[in-house]
């Protein structure tokens, strides 16, 4: 009943909120190069060729703008919008990632529509279905909940329209629910656990007792499972795993179980607003004074929201932190451009979003066509690509980007150099050794056509 109620609620709200649909595109570029997209005579598939026969191509974006992941969804959206702006103007940063890019993608202006998914699969699928039928979308994106990512993966494969995941931490997205038409650039449960696990064992020792707090959907379950598996090798034992529904507000009953579990370490897999509330309430119950807190999958805007220096000394795995600008020149360009446009340092959701679109542009430019099977093959070619976090490449077998994972440690308020200096990057872990074998999680990509 709860779900049904809230679904109707957000459906209405989404209608209320929808923006950006009437993007006034189409007048941008002179004609004359349309032929390029039709260079080879491909059969029609999905929204091809209808979606790319004009002067512009449409991307459907569904991010949560309400609900527990609203804040992270807005940050992610800003990353997408900056990428679109950069792609359309032929920004030097895009050209560094996608050297064949000029203005637009294959000369076509990128336009877009945005819908609020509220992190709910049904809402996201309905909105994307509409973008496909009404706008002939040639690319879909947006998750910020792996439940949404998995649902859109399936839609992508069925409709034969490409999907890039956005924020999605579940192993399933490029594991058992992987599809030929879906791609993910960000880190996930397995790589987070493989990167952060050794740091935790080094810091806290072997044979520890650990309590988990897990949101009750694919992201939570797979991340917790990955950490349990990795830490078991060092003799860490799970004393309790508190599973709560996404969007919980009062965590007291879960936290009492944690408090009475006798654990040494609390690994809190909750994300978004749920992470904020559960950490603040863990403090209320005195748990953070007794147990070491770990946030395995870093949450954008977590530190300023929980406040009170609660994250000082806390370890997390992440996709990106803005101080990486000191290490990667492209990250510096990105952070500067983002901050100039939006007035704050980009969180990893925005970086992830920017990367997804930049990498898509790179794949299409190299394919020389919007024909989906060719774009997919271009992704699967496994080229070395210059990116915001150094050289990366796509793994053809499961469509997961091979990219580094960063371990960050929360700073004490007194250590912060400026008001956004919450985390210190303590380790950069190369991606490939962290990844499972492509078929270990049951990935079968499916057909191109």
């Amino acid at each position: 009943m709860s779900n049904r109620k809230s679904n109707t609620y957000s459906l209405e709200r989404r209608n209320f909120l929808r923006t950006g649909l009437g993007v006034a595109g189409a007048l941008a570029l002179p004609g004359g190069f349309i032929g390029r997209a039709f260079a080879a005579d491909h059969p029609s598939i999905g929204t091809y060729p209808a979606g790319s026969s004009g002067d512009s191509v449409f991307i459907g974006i569904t991010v949560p703008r309400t609900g527990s992941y609203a804040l992270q969804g807005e940050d992610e959206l800003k990353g997408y919008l900056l990428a679109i702006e950069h792609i359309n103007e032929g920004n030097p940063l895009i050209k560094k990632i996608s050297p064949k890019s000029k203005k637009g993608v294959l000369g076509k202006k990128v336009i877009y529509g945005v819908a609020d998914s509220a992190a709910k699969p049904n809402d996201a699928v309905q909105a994307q279905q509409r973008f496909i039928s009404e706008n002939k979308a040639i690319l879909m994106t947006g998750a910020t909940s792996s439940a949404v990512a998995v649902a859109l993966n399936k839609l992508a494969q069925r409709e034969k329209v490409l999907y890039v995941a956005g924020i999605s931490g579940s192993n399933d997205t490029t594991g058992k629910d992987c599809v030929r038409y879906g791609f993910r650039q960000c880190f996930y449960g397995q790589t987070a656990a493989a990167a952060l696990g050794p740091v935790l064992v080094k810091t806290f020792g072997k044979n520890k007792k650990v309590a988990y707090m897990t949101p009750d959907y694919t992201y939570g379950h797979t991340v917790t499972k990955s950490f349990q598996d990795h830490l078991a090798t060092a003799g860490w034992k799970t004393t309790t795993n508190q599973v709560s529904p996404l969007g919980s507000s009062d965590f007291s009953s879960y936290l009492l179980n944690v408090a009475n579990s006798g654990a040494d370490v609390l690994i809190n897999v909750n994300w978004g607003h749920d992470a904020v509330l559960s950490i603040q309430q863990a403090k209320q119950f005195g748990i953070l004074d007794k147990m070491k807190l770990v946030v395995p999958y870093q949450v954008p805007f977590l530190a300023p929201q929980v406040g009170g220096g609660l994250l000082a000394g806390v370890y997390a795995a992440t996709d990106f932190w803005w101080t990486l600008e000191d290490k990667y020149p492209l990250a510096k360009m990105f952070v500067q451009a983002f901050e100039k446009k939006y007035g704050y340092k980009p969180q990893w959701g925005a970086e992830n979003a920017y990367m997804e679109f930049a990498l898509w542009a790179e794949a299409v430019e190299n394919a020389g066509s919007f024909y989906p099977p060719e774009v997919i093959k271009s992704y699967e070619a496994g080229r070395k690509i210059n990116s915001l976090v150094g050289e990366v490449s796509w793994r053809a077998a499961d469509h997961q980007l091979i990219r580094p994972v960063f371990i960050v440690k929360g700073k004490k308020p007194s250590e912060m150099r400026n008001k956004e200096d919450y985390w210190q990057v303590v380790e950069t872990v190369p991606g490939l050794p962290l990844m499972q074998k492509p078929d270990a999680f049951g990935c079968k990509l499916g057909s191109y056509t």
Partner: protein
Amino acid sequence: MLNWTNFLSQLFNGLVLGALLALISSGLTIIYGTLGLLNLAHGAMFMLGGYAGYVAYHATNSFALAVLAATLFMLVFGILLERLVIRYFYDRPDEDQLLVTFGLSICIVETVRYFFSSMTKTVPPPSMFSGITSMGGVIFPTYRLALIGIVAVALLALYLILYRTRLGLIVRAGIEDSMMVDSLGINVYRVFMIVFGIGAMAAGFAGIVNAPVVSLSPGMGEAILVQTFVVVVIGGVGSFPGAVLGGLIAGEIISLTSMINPAYSYIMLFAAMTLVLVFRPRGLLGKKGRE
């Protein structure tokens, strides 16, 4: 995790959760009972009360003043809302009432989001209630303990208004048969306005006293609204004592189930509601034949 310490902690926690649910639900149930209007904006009013208190807290640095300001603000807000919008819907079909209160809740939530963003806002507990209290092996946040008292006082005040005043008499008569009250020459619409104001005030009060427990965010009313409906259904639609009883039952179900398996907390809550609907459709303390 079954052991005595945890059982006592959870039993206690259920009481705290239940008290809050009772308070929020009582506003919802007296509005429905009197006006016959299912107020889907009740969760949003709970949230708005929290934000009003947040603003007042940062202006005055006093939690007591924040509670007072939020409560009064929501009383006025409720009355204005009733005068400007709600009263035009008393004679309209149920679905119109649902749609308008639903629409209002969207407007309230998004207006708050516009001004305060989705960033979580915190209101610290008053200093005398901060920290942790240890009770023979059971530790509990002091403010949550105090909350039981705070909510009990608020519920008592509501009880006194409803059962010991002339206004309360009219309200309760209105719950039984508003047409009869009207034909006795009592201006029932003025009473409706006041009841809506009191309902909003109860939600707002709950919003601010809950703020030190659960930090504020614009969407926080959505989840609580579903729970309050369950409470009202369990307790009996339109019944104030029913809301209190239903709230306490719901709080204990959530808390005690989580001790065995937290994933089943809400399933058990809805199962309880289903049982009530099957065996006692009017709710535990609801009366037969009530409008």
